[in-house]
């Protein structure tokens, strides 16, 4: 990553830290995410029907993926259109920064905290399940395929979510609308993840790695598409340059 993208990343992280709405969302959503699985998973006892255990763990696993999928859209929705509304985007666009540098800096600034929070939550979840859950739960949760899937999927899903959010943000006129549309747009991805957490697709390390490769390709394509969509003229004047 070059120095301009680093400058964007540093500035965005500084700005987010002082944005009450973003900080509140970053605290509230993870607390919700922690509460739901603990309340359901820790209630499972030895001898509970296998189908109930799997359904409960499937829901709990899915909730963890809400953080990397939803949290970045809150940040990304604000990222371009919020700056335009504040009048800060035009001075930035007058500098030599390239579209790709600006977008990478903005994307990473959203991905880094989201991934850190997701890993922390999953670590707490694993620790609590390992120490307090029924053996049948422990056996299904503390599995290498599950851990590999979370480690790989979280940053890739967060990136995907960011690109979707940025794509909507560069074509939107209102921060809230951009955030809501971005939230809706990533829901199909949540459906695909559900296939994994509800074990419709057998959760093996190979499946997790294959899924991660597919997601990485999708992210690379999305980055290209969003960079191409980032039309300075459209953003500043609502007219496209073509």
């Amino acid at each position, binding site marked *: 990553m070059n*120095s*301009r993208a*680093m*400058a*964007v990343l*540093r*500035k965005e992280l*500084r*700005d987010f830290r*002082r*944005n009450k709405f973003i900080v509140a969302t970053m605290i509230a959503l993870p607390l919700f995410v922690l509460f739901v699985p603990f309340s359901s998973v820790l209630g499972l006892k030895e001898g509970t029907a296998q189908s109930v255990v799997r359904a409960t763990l499937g829901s709990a696993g899915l909730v963890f993926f809400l953080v990397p999928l939803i949290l970045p859209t809150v940040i990304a929705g604000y990222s371009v259109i919020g700056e335009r509304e*504040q*009048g*800060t*985007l*035009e*001075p*930035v*666009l*007058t*500098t*030599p*920064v*390239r579209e790709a540098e600006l977008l990478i800096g903005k994307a990473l600034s959203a991905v880094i905290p989201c991934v850190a929070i997701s890993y922390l939550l999953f670590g707490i979840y694993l620790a609590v399940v390992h120490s307090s859950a029924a053996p049948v739960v422990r056996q299904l949760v503390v599995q290498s395929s599950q851990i590999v899937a979370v480690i790989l999927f979280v940053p890739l899903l967060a990136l995907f979510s960011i690109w979707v959010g940025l794509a909507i943000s560069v074509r939107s006129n209102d921060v809230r609308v951009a955030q809501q549309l971005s939230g809706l747009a990533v829901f199909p991805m949540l459906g695909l993840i559900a296939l994994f957490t509800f074990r419709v697709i057998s959760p093996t390390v190979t499946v997790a790695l294959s899924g991660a490769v597919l997601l990485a390709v999708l992210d690379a394509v999305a980055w290209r598409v969003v960079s191409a969509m980032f039309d*300075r*003229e459209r953003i*500043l*004047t609502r*007219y496209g*340059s073509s």
Partner: protein
Amino acid sequence: MDAPAIRATGLTKRFGQRTAFQDLTFEVGAGEVFGFLGPNGAGKTTTVRVLGTLIRPTSGSAEVAGVPLADGSGPDLRSLVAVMPENPGMYLRLTVYDNLEYFAGLYGIPRAKARERILASLDTVGMATRASDFAGSLSKGLRQRASLARTLLSDPKVLFLDEPTSGLDPVATREVRELIEGLRTRGVTVFLTTHRLDEAERLCDRIAVMNTTLRVVGRPDDLRRQLFESAIEVRTARPLEDPSALFASVGAAGAWSQNGDGVYHVKADDVAATTPELARALVAAGADVLRLAEVERTLEDVYLQLVNEDVEVRR
């Protein structure tokens, strides 16, 4: 002779069916302070955005700081120029220093040098002691000054200032003007768009008046001479009894008009030669002369003359 800092040839920008400006052809010399005047919607800001490579021209060509406007030349061109938009666009939750540090990074200034540059820029605009203030706590005038400091970070060859004193109180306006005058001594080429004609008259070497198309370009004095014939204003305590006969008796005097009781404007090609002759004729006629001086035309007169012509044409 130095190459022009800005050269535009037939530059045109349309948004769909609407023409923002068309067929702009002008040059701005290196180190010149160039005023760009025009009414609201004349296309001034769009011109700045096109020359700053924020938006693409529909047709025509331009060169800024020696770099042609072309696909792919944007980053190179933008590294040589700086644009101060009408809205200061400061990140209100960040300190002044953090704001400038971000832009130093965007200009690719190494972090080791950035601090020195930031403090020097803030010092130039008299804000060295406000570096750790949050931008959101600053007055509009101070934000404008911080924004100007931001444009100085990269040591630009060409500086575009879009309505830099818009919305500022008289004290802040004067401070910003003094800063712009200071830039002249640094040899920076300044392209200044403004509504304030007194500001343009005071600061600019040359001005252009535009209203979608370029109406005129030149030095304020030259424009006054081009647009208005020189004339002498005569004020007398009482209206003259026979002004036609009196003015006709002055050989060098031309046509005259009455602009109120005892106020006359007499055209004269050579004001210096005609004024004494006119004074003698007035005294001989027994007139009580209150004032006898060349009619001063301001840049506002030039501007209004050109803009009113456009209004007449549209009617």
